[in-house]
């Protein structure tokens, strides 16, 4: 089958790739680019483990075709560290014990980041809504919400 050329930006760097027209963004990130921080938990858009940020919005990469990413800016969990320093959300997750097995964590952190980027001062309810597409079987969400709240408060 003919491949499609995509030029996109992944974690700030330009990337040019030839992908199969049916290739999921999830597989291209994980397999072609080696960015395995993005996870697959359901493949049908229900668990949020595969969440990344595309042009400021969260996207389930299991439902997104890589071919549609031409010209887009994609941020994955690997793109959060700046100058070898943890992103404040990552720091807060660790501090608040907001992760256990960690499989959902990259997705949750990306949802949190997209929220805080667009709304630096969210209410508890807004935080809950923003992460409601991310299933976490281990933590019960409370400490996740606390972590995000703390980041918001600190940035005030």
């Amino acid at each position, binding site marked *: 089958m003919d491949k499609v050329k995509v030029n996109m930006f992944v974690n700030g760097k330009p990337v040019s790739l030839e992908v199969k027209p049916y290739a999921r963004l999830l597989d291209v990130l994980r397999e072609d680019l080696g960015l395995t921080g993005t996870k697959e938990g359901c493949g049908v858009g229900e668990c949020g483990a595969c969440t990344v940020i595309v042009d400021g919005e969260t996207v389930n990469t299991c439902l997104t075709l890589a071919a549609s990413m031409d010209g887009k800016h994609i941020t994955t969990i690997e793109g959060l560290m700046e100058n070898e320093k943890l992103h404040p959300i990552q720091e807060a997750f660790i501090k608040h014990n907001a992760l256990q097995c960690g499989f959902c964590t990259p997705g949750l952190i990306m949802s949190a980041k997209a929220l805080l980027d667009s709304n630096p001062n969210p209410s508890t309810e807004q935080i809950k809504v923003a992460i409601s597409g991310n299933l976490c079987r281990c933590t*019960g969400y409370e400490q996740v919400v606390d972590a995000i709240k703390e980041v918001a408060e600190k940035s005030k």
Partner: protein
Amino acid sequence: MADSSITRVDVLAKALGKAKYTDDLKFDNMLYLKVVRCPHPHARVIGINKEKALAIEGVVAVLTATDIPGLPCQPKERPILVPEIARYAGDGVALVVAESPKAALEGAEAVRVEYELLEAVFDPEEALKTGAPLVHGDNNVAAQSKVCKGDVEAGFKEADLILEREYNTHRVEHAPIEPEVAIAVPTFEGITVYCPTNSPFQVRQIVAETMAMPQSQIRLFQPTIGGSFGSKCYDAGVLASRAALAAKLTGRPCKIVYTREESIVESTKRHPYKMKYKVGVKKNGKLTAMEVKIIGDSGAYKSKTPFVISRSSIEATGPYVVPNVHTEAICVYTNNVTSCAMRGFGSPQVAYASELLMDELAEKLGIDPLKFRRINGLKDNSLSATGQVMQNVTLDECLDKLEQEIKWSSRKAELKQQDKTGSIVKGLGLACMYRGESFGSAGQGSDYAGATLQVQRDGSITLYSAMSEVGQGGHTMLVRVVSEVLGIKPSRIFVSPVDTCYVPDSGPTVATRGTYVIGNAIRLAAEEVKAKFAEVAAEELGVRPEELVFKDERIYCPGDPSKSISFSRIAAQCYLKSKSPYGYGWWSPPVGSWDREKGQGEAYSSYVYGACAAEVELDLDLGKVEVMKFVAVHDVGKALDKEEVKGQIAGGVSMGIGYALMEDLVVRQGVVKTVNFDEYLLPTSLDIHEIIPVIVEQPSSYGPLGAKGLGEPVMSAVAPAILNAIADALGTRVYDLPANLEAVLDKARAAKGRCCND
């Protein structure tokens, strides 16, 4: 030093997205596997036509049971590939090996299997009748267990009130967010398997048996594990064996990873139970007798069923003094998906039934439900249902703290006054729990753990155990124990990944045994290092070893502060003087006497207790229940880290809310209908409101540093507390799980109908 603020050893890599889970690993020349599953609940495989599949580009091989060099399965266990009879709709029949996941999928769809359909049975009660289709052997009994104490008939005669009730609990999915996966890499010496599992040595054993290879030639490596809750045991063994088989036969690395649909169709679930309780009570609230009949659905294979059912029979009365008890529990084979151990295995079902029962008894007698629990609750020196003299019982303390935290009486009174004419009504309910730690005398028999420490030349330490870090903080717990015994910073200690080539067998990370059994093994290992170091230090300092204290990274003589030497220096001295810097610990819990015939004796050497309360808001028009506040009081022995304890409790409560209100694995005629998270609903952030964890610390006489296990116990009391709160709000009871929209709406309508007709 008690450094309660240490960061968990595993979380940094996870937060960065750098932790390597099995599916993140890549090997050169890797092949991909897809399973061909039997779509019928009971069928004989007549023939398998591989031709079309083999013709597909990229398909390398199609394997079947005849390709297995060793055992396709242990008797009555799920086969790696079905040799002849498929016993549930999901049994693996063939394995397609291909160059890409896509080719493997296409290959699997092209395999033609001819079946002869066999009569199937889905209802456990039907399965027990003579003439029922047989799943295994000559009857369908998978396991049974009894507890008989005193004389129940006499007990019922003494009673002022006798209540009989039936409760049904449903089948639910473990649903760790990481689906099943395994990679096998053939090596010159044998096979290396990468697999997330809570039971590395058991999985290794299954692979060795499948491959007819010595266990020592199978190397099982555990990458980061994306949650387990009990699921990654036998299920992981099946995957690991399938990968190993393909790797051995093709000579190439092979990966098998399930989609969520495959995971839900094939994997094991929590046992559904039907429970019949008959209980006698006096007017003063004292229980006189209890008769319990439990029938559980084991599904198609045995799995952990015997251990689940024995625990259920032991804990069936709840943490109460009942002078006369007769419990009979039986689990039955059917052609449904297999049941296995899941967080709290065997406890949540009976905690559910017994706590709903206690609430209803209290209501009938006009006694406050919390007070009713106090009247009957176990205390020090009480006799349990198995005739064990209970010690270190903390139920009353848990109830005290619960009462304070939720302001039980005043909140109850407030809710009584609420205006019930609108569509939202509120209710408050509670439930208690207890649970034996580890396998117990009646359970899996042998229970042991080994653990090793090596102090390196520079004073850093490598810790070896088979503790599975499933997200519960198990590795950090071990680090803490070593750090406390040796008086050193946790940052000195590196936890080796689990690799069966190097780590000692610590048994599986299940049954609330991680902290208790493995924690004790590592404590012994640390004590051995301490004794060896004390000798070397004593020589250096010119004192006797007994005089020395290990604290703040130093070894010193409290009487004479000048006699002090750093931990690192002694480490170097050991090597210099050719002294062993190793510590090894092997621990097994005390095993009490156990009479299997009567189910009497010391069932477990240690118990944990808890008391929980739920406040719910119920929408009468929708049937929707929101758990607005959940207070969970648990005796943790000693909280090694409060934040972690909080996390375990919150996670367990969330899972309990799912169990109570929304999760439901629907199986019709043996076929699973809810195959992904769009139909099988897990709680989201919007379903969880306030969770208040409260810790009771009654140091355990056996646990390392007094700690007790917590991961499993937190599940048990959640569903009954919620259901009791629903009953408080509605004035009528839901007896069967889940209390989903339909069930609650039904009851709400009936209640309304009644009050309108009045």
